[in-house]
């Protein structure tokens, strides 16, 4: 395990950003108000080289959140035990402040599809996901956070609402939740529900981390707004307003800015983090 015991072992209730290697030098020079970093676990599963060297260095100065994008927790088949072992290895080596994954599937029939795919919310999927999360938490040896998805469509067979489904998963498995506020806004727009209503129903006491990101705008076949979670631009004003709505009810939380495509220069990303800091400053501790 790395010797990074001097820094906090929890994510602070402060802004963080998704780490991009092109920002390495500037983060070391001028991070403020960015107080922690998140990495995509799969990008750090090589045997060595620059990615792991940079991560080692950053972990000496910042709490790190390991965010998996490839475990396919919502998959119909069993979890990929090789991948689980890789996660265990990375988490064991890095001793991160947080570990999270998605309510989604991405692997089927040994094909990894490199996208977070949706699943119906039924008693059967609930029990399968809980089994998978039990196995993950047992294997990795710590609590994980589960993130709500962006939805573009609904399943006819679903019998649970998403907040209730997540609440029940957290209750059964003891996992925490990662609340992606942009995803709530995207899904609410696409599927015509109230984002505030979703937040009111959501178990905010389980939230260990909040995500914010930019989305693209499109339309479906009937001219209905169709927002796409692209992580390729600034967070829009209504999502910032929804963050305020969340923080008023949850109190201060670690807030992450995700920007994964068309990655901007560091000052632009840092400005988003400043906006998150301002939102946190408005919340009584």
């Amino acid at each position, binding site marked *: 395990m790395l010797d990074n015991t001097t820094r906090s072992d929890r994510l602070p209730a402060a802004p963080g950003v998704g780490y991009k290697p092109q920002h390495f030098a500037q983060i070391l020079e001028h991070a403020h108000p960015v107080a922690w970093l998140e990495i995509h676990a*799969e*990008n750090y*599963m*090589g*045997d*060595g*080289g*620059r*990615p*792991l*060297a940079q991560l080692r260095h950053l972990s000496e100065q910042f709490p790190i959140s390991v965010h998996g*994008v*490839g*475990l*396919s927790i919502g*998959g*119909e088949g069993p979890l*990929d035990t*090789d*991948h689980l072992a*890789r996660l265990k290895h990375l988490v064991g080596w890095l001793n991160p402040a947080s570990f999270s994954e998605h309510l989604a*599937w*991405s*692997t*089927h*029939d*040994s*094909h*990894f*599809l*490199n*996208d977070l*795919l*949706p*699943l*119906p919310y039924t008693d059967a999927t609930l029990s399968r996901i809980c089994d998978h999360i039990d196995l993950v938490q047992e294997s990795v040896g710590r609590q994980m956070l589960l993130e709500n998805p962006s939805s*573009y*469509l*609904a*399943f*006819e*067979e679903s019998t649970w609402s998403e907040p209730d489904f997540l609440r029940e998963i957290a209750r059964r498995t003891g996992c925490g939740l990662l609340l992606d506020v942009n995803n709530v806004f995207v899904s609410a727009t*696409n*599927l*015509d529900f109230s984002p505030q209503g979703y937040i009111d129903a959501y178990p905010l006491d389980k939230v260990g981390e909040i995500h914010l990101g930019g989305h693209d705008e*499109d339309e*479906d*076949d*009937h001219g*209905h707004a*169709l927002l*796409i979670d692209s992580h390729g631009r600034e967070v829009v004003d209504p999502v910032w307003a929804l963050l305020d709505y969340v923080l008023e009810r949850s109190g201060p939380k670690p807030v992450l800015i995700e920007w994964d495509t068309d990655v901007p220069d560091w000052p632009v990303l840092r400005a988003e983090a400043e906006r998150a800091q301002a939102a946190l400053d408005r919340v009584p501790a």
Partner: protein
Amino acid sequence: MSVSQTTFHTALLDPSAAIPDGLLDSAAQPAGRRFSVYRNNVAVSLTEAMHQAFPVITKLLGQKNMDGLSGIFLRKHPPSSPLMMFYGEKFPDFLGGMEQLSHLGYLADVARLELALRRSYHAADSEAAPADALALPPEDIMQAKLGFAPSMHILRSGWPVFSIWRFNTEEDAAKPQPGPEDTLITRPDYDPVPHLLPVGGADWIAAIQTGQTIGGAFEETAAQFPEFDLGATLALLLQGGAITSVTIERLAT
């Protein structure tokens, strides 16, 4: 109506497949175009991964042709693991098997070089032997065995693959001339660097990797390639930090 992941998966990868029943929009109508968001995400993200993985192939073929080829490739060979850093392992053979590309016979080996560069980038770290590790009496050098860094790779080709790679990545590089080229990849720091190996260099390194001594491997290589330049080959390896250990086995006296 329940939608299995098998059905979802099939429809994702086949744009001509019907959109599965049981997927709805906000008015409980069939999802239609909304399903295409997932189709598009999968195709675009994997195509983008191919561009990043094979920049020289992309340059040689042009962006549009690479998009088209990636579209065929990703449906035939979707990633088999979430480690996207290694995606495209089957791309060289795929390129080599494309009849329409048979006039560009070198493409497969250029793709192999790009794959090897990525593997080198992510290979385990190792400590290079000191620069004077081979400052030894000649008879000792000939008795020495070498260990190589995990980041070292060799690519042998009947095509001028090193020159093609350089011509497409460096300004003012010489135009490739026909003929075979063997490429050595070393990673002195964190960035892999390809080098053109002298004639016989790849054979000599292969002999060392089977556990032969420098001298034994040299005799074998020089018998086949009298012009083999051992000094130049060793210099490339040493300067690239590719030699991690020098062990001298002396006969018991």
